[in-house]
């Protein structure tokens, strides 16, 4: 006698612990992969999880086995033309299809890299590790959308607690009417017949006929009565669906200096800063647009790729970018409809006469319209006049304006702490 057991509902994730152990052990590799992803991916799909490759030699488990060389006798199937004593050239790459001992990767088709996927949650964990985000915020970043349960009509399947009594009874009634149509029509006919027969009374024949017809009506009525009062078919349930809570739209401006003094490392740091802001916004808003504005002496709206990776030389006039941003806001993003966020990254260089102008543009054309303006200066040197001007702004617009110096990635977070404190 065999026992047959349905285990399908048992815990599925039995390997989770082992998987975690594995990730923990190869943290270094995974972090490198995540960093690469951060640097090469578009801001918009940064939180999607990713692929990690680890060289096979780093991951193999050693054991005693034979190396190449020595004398080996191997038996192969499928001989066609060989006879004993034939000499064959040794195939390239040693073993030439070992008898199952050699590792698969020797056979040409195996992969040299051990590649696997990590999910979004793990990806963000690794990405934020450097940024020293507190756990609470990591969690909030992860579940971006909230849902609301709404009624959406009725369905014929559901759980008893969602049963809609009125609808169900109405359906039952309709069914009863529909299914008893034939019988009721017949009753009506019989009744008119009785009426005409009643005119002939007291004819003996008519009395008998009326009695017979009455009998028939009685059976028909019985048949109608036998129809079930309510059937499974009649049951109607309230239909509830989950809909994302509508939230208003947001636009995020990434403003960056691309003049000669901005190195790729500075840009990468800036990119992380932008990513973080983007993720923060995805938490609060359902629809987000990103506008990239880069500048040297002139400002230009570009796509993301160009924003991060093309280089130009020349001087720096920050106000050009601020003016362009303000123009774009005016044209395309009326503040009534859009929540506007601006993030500016720079190494602090600006043409001397321009910094004052920057303050004016900010104060008059931008800050009144935006939710938040964050300025990060990525530099190890001392602050220059742009910073000093901005400090004045901070005094006036403390609510919507934040600025911070960033030396390395771990400094990015403090800017955000402010951002979150304000909201929460």
């Amino acid at each position, binding site marked *: 006698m065999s*026992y047959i057991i349905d285990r399908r509902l048992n815990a599925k994730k039995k390997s989770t612990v082992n998987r975690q152990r594995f990730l923990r052990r190869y943290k270094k590799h995974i972090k490198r992969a995540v960093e690469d992803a951060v640097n090469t991916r578009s801001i918009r799909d940064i939180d999607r999880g990713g692929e990690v490759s680890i060289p096979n030699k780093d991951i193999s488990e*050693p054991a005693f086995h034979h190396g190449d060389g*020595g004398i080996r006798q191997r038996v192969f199937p499928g001989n*066609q033309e060989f*006879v004993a004593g034939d000499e064959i050239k040794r195939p390239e790459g040693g073993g030439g299809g070992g008898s199952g001992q050699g590792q698969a990767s020797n056979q040409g088709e195996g992969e040299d890299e051990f590649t696997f996927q990590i999910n979004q949650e793990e990806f963000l964990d690794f990405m934020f590790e450097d940024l020293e985000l507190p756990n609470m915020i990591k969690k909030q970043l992860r579940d971006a959308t909230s849902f609301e349960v709404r009624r959406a009509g009725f369905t014929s399947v559901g759980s008893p607690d969602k049963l809609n009594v009125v609808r169900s009874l109405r359906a039952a009634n309709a069914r009863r009417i529909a299914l008893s149509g034939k019988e009721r029509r017949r009753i009506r006919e019989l009744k008119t017949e009785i009426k005409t027969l009643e005119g002939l009374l007291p004819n003996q024949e008519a009395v008998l006929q009326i009695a017979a017809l009455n009998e028939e009506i009685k059976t028909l009525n019985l048949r109608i009565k036998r129809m079930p009062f309510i059937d499974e078919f009649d049951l109607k349930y309230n239909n509830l669906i989950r809909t994302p809570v509508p939230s208003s739209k947001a636009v995020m401006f990434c403003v960056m200096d691309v003049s000669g003094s901005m190195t790729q490392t500075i840009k990468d740091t800036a990119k992380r800063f932008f990513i973080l802001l983007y993720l923060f916004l995805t938490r609060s808003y359902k629809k987000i647009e990103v506008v990239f504005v880069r500048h040297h002496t002139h400002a230009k709206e570009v796509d993301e790729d160009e924003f991060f990776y093309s280089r130009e030389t020349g001087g720096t006039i920050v106000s050009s970018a601020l003016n362009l941003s303000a123009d774009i806001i005016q044209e395309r993003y009326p503040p009534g409809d859009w929540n506007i966020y601006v993030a500016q990254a720079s190494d602090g260089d600006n043409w001397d006469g321009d910094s004052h102008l920057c303050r004016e543009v900010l104060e008059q054309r931008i800050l009144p319209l935006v939710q938040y303006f964050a300025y990060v200066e990525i530099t190890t040197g001392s602050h220059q006049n742009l910073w000093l001007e901005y400090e004045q702004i901070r005094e006036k617009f403390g609510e919507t304006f934040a600025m911070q110096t960033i030396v390395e990635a771990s400094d990015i977070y403090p800017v955000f702490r402010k951002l979150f404190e304000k909201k929460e």
Partner: protein
Amino acid sequence: MKQREPISTGSEWTFELIQKYDQEIARVAEHYGLDTYPNQIEVITSEQMMDAYSSVGMPLNYNHWSFGKQFVSTEQQYKRGQMGLAYEIVINSNPCISYLMEENTMTMQALVIAHACYGHNSFFKGNYLFKTWTDASAIIDYLLFAKNYIAKCEERHGVDAVEQMLDSCHALMNYGVNRYLRPQPITPEEEKNRLLEREEYVQRHLNQLWNTIPRKDEVVQDKTPHFPKDPEENLLYFIEKNAPLLEPWQREIVRIVRKISQYYYPQRQTQVMNEGWACFWHYTILNHLHDEGLVTDGFIMEFLHSHTSVIYQPPFDSPYFNGINPYALGFGMMQDIRRICENPTDEDRQWFPDIAGSDWNETLQHAMRNYKDESFILQYLSPHMMRELKLFTITDNTALSTMQVSAIHDEQGYQQVREDLAASYNIGNREPNIQIYNVDIRGDRSLTLRHYIHNEQPLAADTDEVLKHLHRLWGFDIHLESVTPEGEVQHKLHCPVKMNVDAVA
């Protein structure tokens, strides 16, 4: 044979149908005299199948990153469609646990039941290696004990310490078996009770070994005692009993890995036979059901389709070639033995006078009970079978510029090919023969291993990685000497690496 109504006609399975098929298959299996453990058939999802894969087919196991790696890679390959999951996993336990995947069709479920629940199951119960080396009724309980013990160690000593220990033990896992000595059966109850006792005993015993302070007049250079007296093949056993610096819990972990390795040892030696036996019986049983009219023609067509792809042997020059397919060889040989018994040719009578014309079922049962891959092939591989598979031997001597075809499937070559094929299933040939040779107990406590060179084959390049693990377990210097059959030390490895002439030479 009287024709009966088919059990089912559709491809969907239900629990009732599985039960009906199981009953019929059990009846036919009994008719052929298969002796099995009771079956426990578990239906699982593909995700659960992946879980089972990554814990080496065990329903439970301790936690270790290498199982996670296995899982990640299985999951990856499966999702990309590079590999299908096995239809079934069967565990050598009593009751015999088999997993059926939810996605299988009814035909596949029936195939798996015949293959695993009656084929493999009867092999586990009947084969001498499994009978001697494994204790089917205790394995699940032992694994539970091991899992809990290791979890407790992690709590007490930290995940990292335990992981290091397991890494090192895994590196030596294949050298944690007794090849000739029957081990004590493992009973978890006893195991628990004796745990403390053993820890104490080993520690005391160790102290005696290491504390021996030689009296001055006894120290004579050439009379240094050899320890161990005879070379020890079970490295993990030796470490468990003698490593000077291990804590009791570490010894217990060594023991756990060793015991589990021992449990797998028969499986590694009977792959061809085990799969061949299971394939033979699913083929025989399902055809029997078809003859009785219990399964439809459609069923048998679907079955044959999977069956033939499982037992297909691509030729050596095919891109799909990946060594000799144990299913193909095993099934072919089992069928061949039946043929020799039922319709022997003159050649068969000459090669197999004992079995030609005998009762096929008895002969097969005898073979299943008393052989392992190596001896099975040596005994039963027939010229007919060699011709069928067109087997040939290639001798690859790296000292020469070309390889030689040393024997093929002809009159002169049958013996040679058969011996070579059998030898390739000898674990003693496949894995380097490495044994513990000496411990310098009066000196620096260094441990010397000897690798007995076979066919001039050197050790692989990552051997020093293994030595590092051994060094971690032993705590003192490790030397590994490769010795030629003439007894001459040809090559030496040291851990930690010695920076002297010796290593350079």
